[in-house]
């Protein structure tokens, strides 16, 4: 039989354990992933070799950084990225209305699915449901819309993409925007 004291100790002990775990998670586990060197630095040009080098090198990376994601978006939208730096890239996307004016994440930080979802929603001119109509394309509902459209797998806005996943998402957007060739139209 357990005494009241021991029960109380177990309960508070559990609480203490949970608190300690939370502190460890907060101090260690919740940091945003960063990449040491971006693919954009390696393939920053607009020629065929640089562009294809970028896409297929990115597909081998474990994490997609903000810089790589934005360079990829600009390449996809315009066919070229004339920005000389990450800040210019952010400004270019802000001028297109794809990034919020308050965006200030560093270049080597992993891109979040929420940030990308808002850009895609605006790029594809997705109307969305009544919540998006009322509150605009917030990250939470833009991600939900991406999941609903089959562009994202079930995700949360804070998750990031691996390189190959990012390339896959861009390919999926391509399918939606481009007239798909007859042989693959059924997909």
């Amino acid at each position, binding site marked *: 039989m357990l005494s009241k004291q021991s029960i109380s100790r177990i309960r508070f002990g559990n609480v203490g354990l949970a608190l300690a775990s939370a502190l460890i998670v907060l101090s260690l586990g919740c940091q945003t992933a960063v990449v040491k060197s971006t693919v954009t630095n390696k393939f920053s040009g607009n020629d*065929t*070799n640089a*562009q*294809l*080098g970028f*896409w*297929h090198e990115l*597909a081998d990376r474990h994490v997609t950084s903000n810089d790589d994601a934005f360079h990829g978006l600009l*390449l*996809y939208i315009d066919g070229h990225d004339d920005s000389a730096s990450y800040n210019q890239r952010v400004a270019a996307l802000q001028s297109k209305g794809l990034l919020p004016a308050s965006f200030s994440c560093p270049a080597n930080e992993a891109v979040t699915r929420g940030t990308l979802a808002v850009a895609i929603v605006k790029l594809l001119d*997705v*109307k*969305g*449901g*009544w919540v998006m*109509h*009322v509150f605009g394309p917030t990250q939470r509902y833009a991600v939900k819309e991406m999941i*609903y*459209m089959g562009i*994202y*797998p079930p995700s949360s806005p804070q998750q990031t*993409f*691996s390189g*190959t*996943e990012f*390339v*896959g*998402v*861009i*390919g*999926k957007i*391509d*399918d939606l925007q*481009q007239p798909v*060739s007859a*042989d*693959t139209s*059924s*997909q």
Partner: protein
Amino acid sequence: MRSLNSNRQIFLGLICTMLCAAAPAMAGSATTMPTAEASSQPNSAVSMHIYVVAVNGLVQARDGDSQPWAVAQTNMVLSEGAELRTGPHSSVTCVIPPDQTFTLDRLGTVRVADAFRNGNMVKTDLLMKYGRTHYDIQSAGLQHEASITSPSSTLAVRGTTVSLFDQPPYVPSAISFTGRARFTYNHNTVSVGTKHGSYAKALAGTDGSAQTGVGDTVVDPRYAASLTAADSALIATEVARGAVISYNPILGIPTVAGGRPSYDSELPSTLPGTLDLVLRWTGDADLNLEVGVDIGNPQVVFLSQFVSNEFLYPGNGQQNSASGGHIPYDDIGGPTGGEEIAYWLGNHPQGLYGIGAQFISGQPTSYTFNIYEYGKPVEMFYFDSNGDFVKSTQMTSTLSSGQFGSAIAAIPDQAYFDGLIPNDPAGNPNPGIGPGSFTPAVRALAMGIKTPSPK
């Protein structure tokens, strides 16, 4: 005699050997595709060439890992071990004579790992790192052993037209357009398609195309057979007024564009339900109808503030409610306005109903709310332009970008509320919609009359 024949055979053999030796060099510089690529000598494997026949967008190719990437061009000749990669909006089509064609779609990479012929047997293996590859084998008298292999799946092909898609974060899938292929994923192999069959698709992890087909099944609401009688009648009315019916696969609801709203005189006869909530507008705008229901005794729920138990919206799966409420289509408007309706057939819950109009796009417009229960107009309560809480059986107001119009109504109609709340000074009912609601030019458009353009 025998020696003469044997000498002739040796001579012919020498000629054949010389021709075979010269063939690769000739193929290397060829810009036209040969009809038969490899030697027909039995039991000797001969590597086959790959001809690039169509390039679209950014495409690069190389003959092996050690070679540099080069921009792919039409009529380029590659050899076994060649690798191709594509960018966005791009694709490349290659032919392996005499009867194989493959197309690598956007943002993919593929290597021709094996492409050789051994007598009448042709073996081809495409290694697709990621992307989508379409593969067509005509099986022209040759025995094929062909496959597309991706990191997580393999599609084995014998004389058919297939497509393999494998790209994280999506589930790999195989499609057979004609014939049968074998799709292997996670140590499990299923058949895709049938001999002489038509389109079949299998998602990785399913039991095959049958299970995938069931999962993908949707009933296209454009077809009359998939619509209820009430929806068919409503949509037929819209079409009769010049509207165009389509289907929005993202919102998952039929859409109506063009046409005009019902006039006040026409509205009661077109209502399908025992309870109908109608939004009509006259301007060149897209409005959406929203309906919220606070189920319960109207007088009780009125005092406890409005809590939406059910919500109806045109699309996103919210066009049906648990109690049977239904919005049959999303009217996206046109030059002469539009009309959306929510209705219940048979029993409908008692409670407080909220009706709302959401401005989606277009020009500022006049709009009108109507609620009918068992064909009789119901009093709606709302704030008028002076900010007074008033009632009317027909509410008309204006809406522009970013605005939301709303009213509430008790179902069944509560005489207590009706006696308590004053009539709208603008009239009960408010002026509604008739032929005079449109400007002459718009009215002519609504009637299908072309007006001469001003000189």
